[in-house]
């Protein structure tokens, strides 16, 4: 993991102290809310429906046991004993009091954490593959690049007032787990024919009101050119990105309106100037960062216990069938801990659970944890021989749900239960779907399925890229849910299509059930996923299942 330098520590501590002063001035009336608002947003403090919300950065989703424990302490001391892991690999506290936030930030600064750039029209906290540095299918670790970009973008004076927020994601695997194509900038680590390291750069992806898949602006950018090239993209966007309409202010609209050719030309022009300003210091910094991400010192031990437990314990077998991903070291595995126990709020963890995760990470995962954008926690380096112990520890904390990649492993944004922008709730729908499919005992049969729910068109729940997406809207004064089908957030990215009129709160779960039953009838065999069937047959059979049967049911 990246080790904070004295400079980093001072910087974060100073920012916390500055915010303390700002909060005091707000409370004593020297600052109006209009003056204070941008200051609090710069420190990740929002005003939501029932309370403030503090969003703490977990850069590229990576943290250690001490940090997880500090977050649990915040939940207990200043919040309501739990926290919410978000689809941006960050963590949110939903009940802090204004006067406590300076203490919270000070406590987090002590463990090298902060809430800087988790909000506002700036370059947001960088995201990455949650299996980075561990997955067998990875060809290069994206974390040094993610950290490099984080340092460059933190407090960058030129990009503090962009037209809107700006999100950068990085991956080093052919299997895109970081939704690269749906980011303002997506960086994929690649090598050219000569074997030199670099990036494929895509630009102009995004969800929200106008979902767009990013376009490749450079298929090979040499590694040493990364920062000047990013500066060039940001400069072009800063100059010609629209500021007249907030919904048209993202770079996806700039790319759409000007065309990728024109954007590329402008970027290249700016890049040729930028490049002269970089004299190699950045590459020294990159090398230093890279050294922090050396592979862990793997232990040599027997994995016999793993096989024995699989034979004797059906729960362990089910867990290891579902929640593991191949590690680059054959004796190791990557464990995904589901924060989606059936009927629970996706992404929520109690402080007790967070402490158990911290303990497990320290003892059995080389002191590393990851937060996935799918709102789960990853133990990236677990020796297979330790898996029975890890599983037992997870079980005792209610964290051993074996549902990764299945229908109940769904994403849901906080929706109208917390969010002031929401048009409908999303958590209740997530809970209803997970509970229903658990009752049916069908989810393992259904297999790989990505279901994603957002409580408004801002799409924090990534509904556009769900195989099944659900968007909560308001219709005639009640909550209404629109279904999109065929979305995909991976390397084969596609935007889901609206399938027809929306469903009420009572209708949506039976509708999803009809959809799934139709899929089970339509698939050629169990290996054909929902998405593959949709791509093979198109929307019609699903439309029929959704709407014809509904009419029948109503008539009956």
């Amino acid at each position, binding site marked *: 993991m990246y080790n904070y330098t004295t400079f980093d520590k001072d910087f974060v501590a100073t920012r916390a102290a500055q915010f303390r002063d700002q909060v005091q001035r*707000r*409370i004593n*009336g020297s600052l*109006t*809310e209009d003056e204070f608002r941008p200051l609090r947003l710069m420190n990740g403090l929002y*005003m*939501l*429906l*029932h*309370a*403030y919300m503090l969003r703490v950065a977990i850069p590229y989703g990576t943290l250690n046991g001490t940090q997880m424990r500090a977050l649990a302490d915040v939940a207990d001391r200043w919040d*309501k004993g739990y926290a919410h892991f978000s689809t941006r690999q960050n963590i949110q506290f939903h*009940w*802090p*009091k*204004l*006067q406590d936030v300076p203490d919270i930030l000070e406590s987090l600064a002590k463990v090298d954490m902060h809430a800087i750039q988790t909000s506002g029209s700036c370059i947001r906290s960088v995201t990455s593959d949650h299996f980075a540095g561990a997955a067998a299918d990875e060809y290069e670790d994206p974390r040094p690049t993610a950290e490099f970009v984080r340092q460059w973008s933190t407090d960058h004076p030129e990009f503090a007032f962009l037209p809107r927020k700006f999100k950068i994601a990085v991956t080093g695997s052919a299997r895109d787990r970081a939704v690269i194509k749906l980011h303002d900038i997506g960086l994929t680590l690649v090598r050219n024919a000569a074997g030199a390291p670099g990036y494929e750069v895509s630009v102009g992806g995004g969800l929200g009101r106008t979902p767009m898949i990013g376009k490749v602006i450079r298929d090979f950018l040499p590694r040493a050119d990364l920062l000047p090239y990013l500066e060039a993209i940001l400069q072009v966007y800063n100059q010609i990105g629209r500021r007249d309409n907030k919904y048209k202010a993202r770079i996806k609209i700039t790319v759409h309106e000007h065309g990728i050719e024109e954007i590329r030309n402008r970027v290249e022009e700016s890049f040729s100037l930028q490049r002269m300003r970089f004299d190699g210091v950045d590459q020294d910094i990159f090398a230093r960062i890279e050294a922090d991400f050396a592979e862990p010192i793997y232990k040599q031990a027997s994995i016999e216990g793993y096989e024995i437990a699989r034979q004797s314990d059906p729960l362990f077998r089910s867990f290891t069938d579902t929640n593991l991903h191949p590690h680059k070291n054959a004796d190791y595995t990557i464990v995904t801990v589901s924060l989606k126990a059936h009927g629970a*709020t996706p992404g929520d963890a109690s402080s007790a659970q967070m402490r158990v995760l911290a303990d497990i990470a320290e003892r059995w995962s080389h002191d590393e944890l990851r937060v996935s954008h799918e709102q789960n926690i990853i133990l990236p380096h677990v020796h297979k021989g330790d898996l029975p112990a890890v599983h037992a520890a997870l079980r005792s904390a209610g964290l051993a749900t074996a549902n990764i990649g299945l229908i109940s492993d769904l994403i849901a944004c906080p929706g*109208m*239960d*917390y969010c002031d922008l*929401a048009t409908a*709730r999303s*958590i*209740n729908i997530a*809970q209803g779907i997970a509970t229903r499919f658990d009752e049916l005992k069908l989810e393992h049969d259904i297999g790989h399925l990505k279901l994603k729910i957002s409580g408004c068109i801002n799409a924090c729940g990534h509904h556009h890229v769900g195989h099944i997406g659900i968007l909560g809207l*308001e219709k*005639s*004064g*009640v*909550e209404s849910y629109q279904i999109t089908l065929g979305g995909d957030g991976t390397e084969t990215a596609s935007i889901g299509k609206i399938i027809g009129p929306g469903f009420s709160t009572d209708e949506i779960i039976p509708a999803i059930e009809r959809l799934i039953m139709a899929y089970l009838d339509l698939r050629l065999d169990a290996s054909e996923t929902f998405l593959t069937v949709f791509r093979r047959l198109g929307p019609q059979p699903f439309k029929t299942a959704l709407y014809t049967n509904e009419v029948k049911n109503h008539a009956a």
Partner: protein
Amino acid sequence: MKRDTATKIITANDLLSGEVVYLSTSGKWSIRHSDAILFEDKKAANTRLTEVQAQDTSIIGPCLAGATLADNQTPMPVHFREVFRSKGPSNRFLGKQTYAA
């Protein structure tokens, strides 16, 4: 369910706790919707809102919300968003719903 009404209340969030508050008949902010002062028309409500916006530094984001009188003559929220604001989240027993009636 109705989306809005001509009769309004004034609501905001408390500066320190962030809790949802309502301008009450006493002129103070109350955490209970039932204490809210109901304005018969939007104009009167807007006039009061402007005053509140200019004077009150103890709250954030004051605005109008539709409300009607219930049978027991206390104001009731109209839009489901305001219903949630008056109770707390539906996925956890937290917020106003935990207070004794």
